[in-house]
């Protein structure tokens, strides 16, 4: 009997593509035999816009790259400029920055894990992480006045000192969070349906992951121990005691396990930073008009989704000549076309969800 393959258009308005990713699948029955990923539906031309903005005016735009972890994007950009201008940051500002970026890592992973398992059909699994995320967003709104687009870090420190409402909220979060972790492991870890859907699905070998330039939890799930916070410590990450969780098989299940362990490690860092939080100013002395010297600089930071690189070229004027971001989600999804092949269509959705990509970052 002669059979024919057919084309299925997944997205750009499909709920499981996490935004506006479009995947054109070539299917033989239910098995994927070919795939083409299309990006660009959320392209806003941020890098071009930034050529006409002054250095401090760039910061609000970085919030809109990976909008689930705005602080981490802020951090990568402001540290790039600080590197270019040789600005020393006050201790208190460094501690607050680390604390907030780890809080945002938890918030981002909460969405990553929750939506992932919801895409597999388990609705209740999304609510528990979102409760924790809501607490973090509330804390952030006490500090910056906004829930997602913070614009909180500045070149030379942070915009405002901690607000009195922040500390009780963080104390409450620190006491309640371990219980959530325990509950969530009970809810998911041994769930037979989840295991059947994710184990041995979308397995990536370490060599392949590295050759495609994957970073973050997706790379570490394949067994590669690579974390910029350890290999090339920025800010004050070398002062904290934490581990880098690594997976074994690189399948969808490992990507869940690595994210859950990473959340626990981030929680450890938050507790340490909160305990050692020094007093003092939060802004270094920076000139009112920021005019970095002529030159270019590249800086990397470990974001929840992977390594965010920021490249800035300065021509000595108050506006950058070029700002480029190496966005982790964009590099991570480059492997899709290869690993989809041979999987059933339901597994394609599982792989898409397990990667936890954000389209704001893919298209910039």
């Amino acid at each position, binding site marked *: 009997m002669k059979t024919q393959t057919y084309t299925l258009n997944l997205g750009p308005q499909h709920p499981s593509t996490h935004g506006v990713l479009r995947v054109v699948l070539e299917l033989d029955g239910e098995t994927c035999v070919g795939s083409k990923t299309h990006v660009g539906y959320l392209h806003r031309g941020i890098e071009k816009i930034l050529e006409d903005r002054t250095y401090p005016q760039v910061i609000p735009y970085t919030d809109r790259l990976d909008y689930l972890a705005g602080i981490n994007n802020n951090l990568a950009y402001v540290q790039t400029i600080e590197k270019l201008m040789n600005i020393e940051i006050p201790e208190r500002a460094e501690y607050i920055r680390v604390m907030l970026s780890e809080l945002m890592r938890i918030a981002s992973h909460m969405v990553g894990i929750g939506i992932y398992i919801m895409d597999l059909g388990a609705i209740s699994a999304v609510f528990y992480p979102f409760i924790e995320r809501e607490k973090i967003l*509330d804390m952030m*709104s006490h500090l*910056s006045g906004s829930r997602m687009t913070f614009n909180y870090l500045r070149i030379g420190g942070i*915009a405002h000192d901690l607000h009195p409402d922040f500390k009780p909220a963080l104390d409450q979060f620190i006491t309640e969070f371990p219980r959530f972790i325990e509950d969530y492991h009970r809810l998911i870890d041994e769930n037979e349906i989840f295991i059947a859907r994710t184990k041995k699905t979308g397995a990536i070998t370490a060599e392949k992951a590295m050759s495609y330039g994957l970073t973050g939890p997706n790379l570490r799930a394949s067994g590669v121990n690579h974390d910029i916070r350890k290999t090339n410590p920025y800010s004050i990450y070398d002062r904290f005691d934490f581990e880098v969780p690594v997976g074994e098989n690189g399948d969808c299940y490992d990507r869940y396990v690595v994210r859950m362990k990473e959340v626990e490690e981030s929680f450890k860092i938050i507790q340490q930073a909160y305990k050692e939080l020094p007093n003092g100013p939060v802004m270094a002395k920076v000139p009112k008009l920021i005019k970095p010297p002529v030159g270019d600089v590249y800086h990397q930071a470990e974001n929840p989704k992977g390594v965010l690189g920021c490249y800035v070229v300065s021509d000595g004027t108050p506006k950058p000549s070029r700002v480029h971001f190496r966005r982790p989600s964009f590099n991570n999804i480059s492997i899709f076309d290869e690993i989809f092949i041979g999987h059933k269509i339901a597994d394609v959705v599982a792989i898409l969800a397990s990667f936890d990509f954000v389209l704001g970052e893919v298209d910039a």
Partner: protein
Amino acid sequence: MYGKGLLKGLSVTGRNVFRKRLTEKYPEEKPQLAARWRGGFQLDVAGCIACGLCERACPNYAITLTTEKNEENKKQLTTYEINQSYCLFCGLCVEACPKNCLRFTQEFETATYHKEEVKLDLFKNQNLSAPASIYAQPEKATEAARKEDK
């Protein structure tokens, strides 16, 4: 035993049935917003010195203002408009204001029925009755100290 994991997970759901309700009855009960909330805008026109720093701080050119010189040869505001459809709500304008007369308010229901209403004419409608946010405002203690210095 197959299904043990499912039952274990179900026990978590069971326990949560009896926990405190976390959701808010939104339209009936208004949420408690942060003191630094960045929502709507208000402008104290009497305090404004028409320096134009807010206009220059805006990354998206959402603010347009015009000025004229009065009899005492001092700059005076004649129009002031924030086009909220271009606004990023980043707060750089409020931070730039040297007299702290451009402030955020704690309003958050900013949806409108008509496109023209999105533009805020803060010269005609200063919106001073809305609850002000403390975003980038000097703390009360420092404000009092500054008054004593004067």
